[in-house]
């Protein structure tokens, strides 16, 4: 049972980020909670690809090809997503500034109708 702790941590982080996103009073707090939810998927992917007593999937003079290593496909999926997710957060923050310019508040309960 303790061997399933990493997956349980990923599920917990996802759910607590979702709770923060639903009960938020500030758009910037919502953006950071969304980022926390995204990071839970990285934890899940990398924990699935892990193998005990294995090294990184990088060969060199001391670790010739064929040494035991973890799954490289999960690494490839995660590292592009982290950098691209940061740019999407930048887009969301720019939209927050736009909402403030139009309605003078960053409260999601105020910005109801779609304008501007």
């Amino acid at each position, binding site marked *: 049972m303790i061997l399933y702790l990493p997956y349980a941590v990923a599920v917990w982080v996802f759910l607590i980020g979702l709770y923060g996103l639903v009960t938020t009073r500030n758009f910037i*707090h919502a953006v950071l909670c969304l980022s*926390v939810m995204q990071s839970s998927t990285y934890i899940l992917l990398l924990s699935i690809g892990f193998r005990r007593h294995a090294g990184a999937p990088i060969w060199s003079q001391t670790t010739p090809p064929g040494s035991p290593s973890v799954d490289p496909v999960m690494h490839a999926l995660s590292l592009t997503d982290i950098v691209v997710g940061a740019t999407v957060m930048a887009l969301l923050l720019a939209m927050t500034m736009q909402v403030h310019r139009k309605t003078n508040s960053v409260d999601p309960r105020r910005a109801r109708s779609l304008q501007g």
Partner: protein
Amino acid sequence: MNPYQYVIYALLAIFATVTVLTRDPALQIFPYALYGMLLAISFFILQAPDVTLSELTVGTALIPFLVLVTLAKIRAREAKLKEGKDQG
């Protein structure tokens, strides 16, 4: 599982909770940057150096900077509106 992995996973869960439960965005940046650093360390423990490098730059330097610029702009605008309202 060696003890490093237990400790780092427990810390990840705790810091994610702290980040979400801090409602004021100006205060939320600090636990978020710490969470980013803990994520980078946990990726390193999971034998993934590529992902560590990505997360370090983005989670500790770029996102807190963008959030601070947004907060500065919003505060400057609110101060200007208040000043306009007091005068007019």
